[in-house]
């Protein structure tokens, strides 16, 4: 029999206005086991907490029920207060009479009645509460950063700087991500490579950072502080310890017509390649899909020319097991596929390009050496039409995204400005819905494009782009401000394609048990207050995987995520959630149903010797829960037919007691 104290909070008038708090505390006083019941203006205030602490001591309370706001709000507060008074914090239950009662009901009688019932349910539950002790688990002092773009690089550098080991897993042969493909960056117009490559080199040189490029996360097990990750290091067929990155093989390889993904297919590379000059790690990779030697066993040229003897056709994918305390997701984005946008003739004409392709076409390291040439015929374009919001902010038409991709306005302004600066003979049109420039020096930048560089900004959408036989692109559009139809004879059309999370993120989210929104962006633990943490403990979010961002914002979020990860890694021990499942070995059948539904692999089976009541011994297969791994979802408790598996804090009997109290006739 518990000795229960009931504390009813007024929450100022938030509760007291629609719930007769005195009636609630008076009625609940008569419930079995209740030895103290009171109400107070603000239970969460210091004086409120003192009332609680004093009552626990004075009445030797063994259980506490607080009728107040949502447990999501102050459960931790009251648990802490109870603990300070010497009561096990898990002997506290909250009846949510604010969010789920006073705020939604207008009738005071009904609100009061419901508050009493909710209080009774909490009392019924507390009767069956047992003191729980949170276990501790050690923290592996190493972080994993998934994705080696600017977000991942920045996070890794910050964590490494704080003295912790960091691994970067990057699925491409080099780190650097999308930013390596950019030419200049807004609004300062400094060269992307110039600011990024030093950071890439820092990563490579930092003792605390290990880079697993051309690798993917294969499996994630464990939990905050103790993740076990399997990394698949894909076969490069090049021994990275021997390869000097001299590039000789890439010159001699006879397979020359492989689409170069770094340049977005605008030119070709060899079957053995180094993505770009500043690649980190700067080692060659053999593309198994195209290499003659790997396909048919005939060639072997690269091996012959490699003086370092680094080529290894027998190389296999390698699985690396690593342990981490924290994981930062920095999987970034990709532009959406435009094959459904026939009106822009993207699939029909080579001269209709995406903005990212345009970056490559203007980049000195790009396929044209930085000279802007039409991809179709290599001529100099004179009229360029930029189309904004291709797939962004669109209705749910099955091909675009509802959200704003955020970066397009600025990079388009940058493109337009750069084109006008370098080629003053061009006419540049930008069609937009809105121009959004809410960033430091952003609006100034945009205005320069319009005012200084004479870019034609036209509010309106392009309706159709029609390639003509002579190679011109007929652009039909409307000018909403002038309210007229426009027909522009363009040489190139550049589409600001919406960005979407990298497709690998969905699978990764499942492995990480991190939640995603409907657009597959990772969900943050709190949109305002915990923007770089995933709701799953120990998983942090960096960069565009959480939502569209430009580089400055990405870098600041990356550092924020790093700070959070560092905060975690700096701890020696973590307190575990004590509300975990446990199995009654005497009732366990050993059927494995619970093991099959456990998302964390927290349940194992063992053959255990039992001393049976008839004094014989028997070996029985029974389940055992690792409390450090169990997260307390309860899936196992329902899978278990005998009821051997139960969940502390949410036990079968506790929930049924709540049901009984709620359904009680009186």
């Amino acid at each position, binding site marked *: 029999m518990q000795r229960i104290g009931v504390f009813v909070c007024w929450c100022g008038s938030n509760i007291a206005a629609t719930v007769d708090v005195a009636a609630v505390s008076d009625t609940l006083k008569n419930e*079995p086991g209740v030895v103290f019941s009171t109400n107070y203006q603000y239970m969460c205030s210091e004086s409120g907490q003192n009332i609680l602490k004093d009552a626990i001591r004075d009445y030797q309370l063994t259980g506490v029920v607080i009728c107040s706001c949502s447990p999501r709000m102050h459960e931790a507060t009251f648990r802490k207060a109870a603990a300070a008074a010497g009561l096990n914090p898990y002997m506290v239950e909250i009846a949510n009479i604010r969010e789920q009662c006073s705020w939604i009901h207008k009738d005071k009688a009904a609100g009061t009645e419901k508050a009493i019932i909710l209080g009774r349910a909490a009392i019924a539950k507390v009767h069956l509460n047992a003191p729980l002790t949170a276990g501790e688990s050690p923290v592996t002092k190493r972080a994993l950063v998934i994705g080696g773009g600017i977000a991942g690089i920045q996070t890794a550098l910050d964590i490494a700087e704080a003295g912790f080991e960091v691994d970067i897993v990057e699925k491409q042969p080099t780190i650097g991500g999308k930013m390596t493909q950019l030419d200049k960056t807004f609004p300062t117009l400094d060269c992307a490579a110039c600011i990024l490559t030093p950071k890439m080199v820092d990563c490579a040189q930092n003792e605390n950072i290990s880079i697993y490029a051309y690798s993917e996360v294969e499996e994630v097990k464990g939990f905050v502080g103790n993740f076990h990750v399997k990394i698949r290091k894909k076969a490069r067929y090049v021994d990275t310890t021997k390869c000097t990155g001299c590039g000789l093989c890439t010159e001699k390889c006879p397979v020359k017509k492989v689409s170069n993904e770094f340049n977005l297919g605008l030119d070709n590379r060899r079957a053995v390649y180094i993505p770009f000059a500043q690649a980190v790690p700067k080692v060659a990779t053999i593309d198994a899909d195209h290499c003659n030697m790997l396909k048919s066993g005939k060639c072997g040229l690269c091996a012959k020319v490699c003086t370092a003897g680094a080529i290894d056709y027998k190389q296999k994918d390698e699985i690396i097991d690593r342990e981490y305390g924290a994981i930062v997701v920095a999987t970034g984005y990709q532009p959406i596929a435009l094959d459904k946008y026939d009106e822009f003739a993207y699939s029909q004409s080579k001269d209709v390009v995406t903005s990212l392709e345009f970056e490559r076409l203007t980049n000195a390291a790009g396929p044209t050496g930085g000279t802007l040439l039409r991809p179709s015929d290599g001529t100099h374009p004179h009229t360029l039409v930029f189309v904004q919001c291709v797939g962004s902010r669109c209705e749910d038409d099955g091909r675009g995204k509802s959200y704003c991709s955020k970066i397009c306005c600025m990079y388009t302004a940058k493109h337009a400005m750069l084109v006008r600066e370098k080629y003053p003979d061009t006419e540049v049109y930008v069609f937009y819905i809105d121009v959004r420039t809410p960033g430091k020096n952003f609006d100034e930048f945009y205005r320069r494009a319009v005012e200084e560089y004479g870019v034609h900004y036209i509010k309106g959408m392009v309706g159709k782009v029609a390639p003509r036989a002579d190679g011109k692109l007929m652009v039909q559009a409307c000018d909403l401000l002038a309210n007229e139809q426009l027909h522009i004879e363009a040489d190139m059309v550049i589409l600001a394609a919406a960005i979407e999370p990298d497709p690998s993120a969905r699978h990764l989210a499942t492995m990480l048990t991190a939640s995603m929104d409907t657009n597959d962006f990772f969900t943050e633990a709190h949109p305002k207050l915990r923007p770089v943490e995933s709701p799953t403990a120990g998983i942090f979010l960096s960069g565009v995987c959480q939502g569209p961002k430009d580089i400055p914002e990405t870098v600041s979020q990356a550092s924020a995520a790093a700070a959070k990860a560092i905060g975690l890694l700096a701890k020696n021990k973590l307190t575990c959630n004590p509300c975990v499942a446990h199995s009654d070995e005497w009732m366990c059948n050993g059927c494995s149903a619970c093991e099959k539904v456990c998302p964390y692999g927290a349940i194992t089976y063992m053959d255990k010797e039992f001393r049976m009541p*008839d004094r014989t011994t028997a070996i029985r297969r029974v389940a055992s829960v690792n409390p450090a791994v169990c997260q307390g979802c309860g899936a196992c408790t329902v899978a278990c037919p005998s009821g051997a598996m139960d969940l502390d804090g949410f036990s079968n009997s506790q929930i049924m007691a709540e049901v*009984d109290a709620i*359904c*009680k006739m*009186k």
Partner: protein
Amino acid sequence: MKQLSLEKLNDLFALIGQTEALYLPVDDAAGQAAYRRWQPGYTLSKALNTVRSAKDFFFPQTENLVDFKMQGKSIEVIDPRTEQENFVLFGVRACDARSFSILDKVFLADPVDTYYQSRREHGTIVTLACTRPEETCFCTVFGIDPAEPAGDVSCWIEENTLFMKANTPKGDALLTLAAPLLSEGGDDAVAAQQAATRSVLARLPLAKLSLDGMGGESMLKLFDSDKWAELSQACIGCGTCTFVCPTCQCYDIKDFNTGDGVRRFRCWDSCMYSDFTRMAHGNPRLTQRERFRQRFMHKLVYFPANNHGEYGCVGCGRCLSKCPVSMNIVKVAKALEGEVK
């Protein structure tokens, strides 16, 4: 002896049903007989016996004993019983009729079980003679004559006539009530039927079942017999035999929290169940062997030891037909026969 044309049987039921609750075996959805409260349209089942025995009417499967209301530290005790209505149980076979006297020895022994007593006092038992006993019947072993069943009123159905004979004042009262429908006569027809039935009884495969040596004297010898292990090995520990048995009377007392108070009720229990004797610190009957032994020892040894040699079995044969693994008291008795000789 009174008689009534079967065509008027419904009139008889209606007449009785007017003043008292009348229960009789009718066919259920699965084609087996079960006692139901009579209502127009119900016809008497032709089955030899009901699946559940007639003990239900005096010792129902669940029964509310007492209610409690709790407030603070106080408890209020409420006797939930309302006045017991009179009822007539029609069509009880001789075996079940005997079972009442066995139950009486338990429930009416000091201290009297007033729940049972009240039902016994308010119930009138109308028995019906058997004419087509089955291979599972062995009531004659216990000295029961199914052609001359006991009860407040005994009945025979022959051809198209129901013959009735009152044996007790309660029976007299019932026949007086039914008098407008009844006429005198039928002794010869009944005697003829009895002779025919008895000739079948003599041919029953279990008619010669011997229970010699059972009873209190053999208690330790039978208890320690090594036959129990083999006999009980197929037993799945269900309660079928106990629940269809007209003489099994073990019960459990349980509390049910209604949300408004506690209802203490009793319900049938089975000594075959693993938790029957389980205590906080152990169980004296750990395996099915001990539990199985208890049931048959009770019927064949303990009960006769306490009741002048009367067995706790009436040979109705229900457990023979219903046991999921076809283990039963006859097999047990036969297996133990050698132990006591």
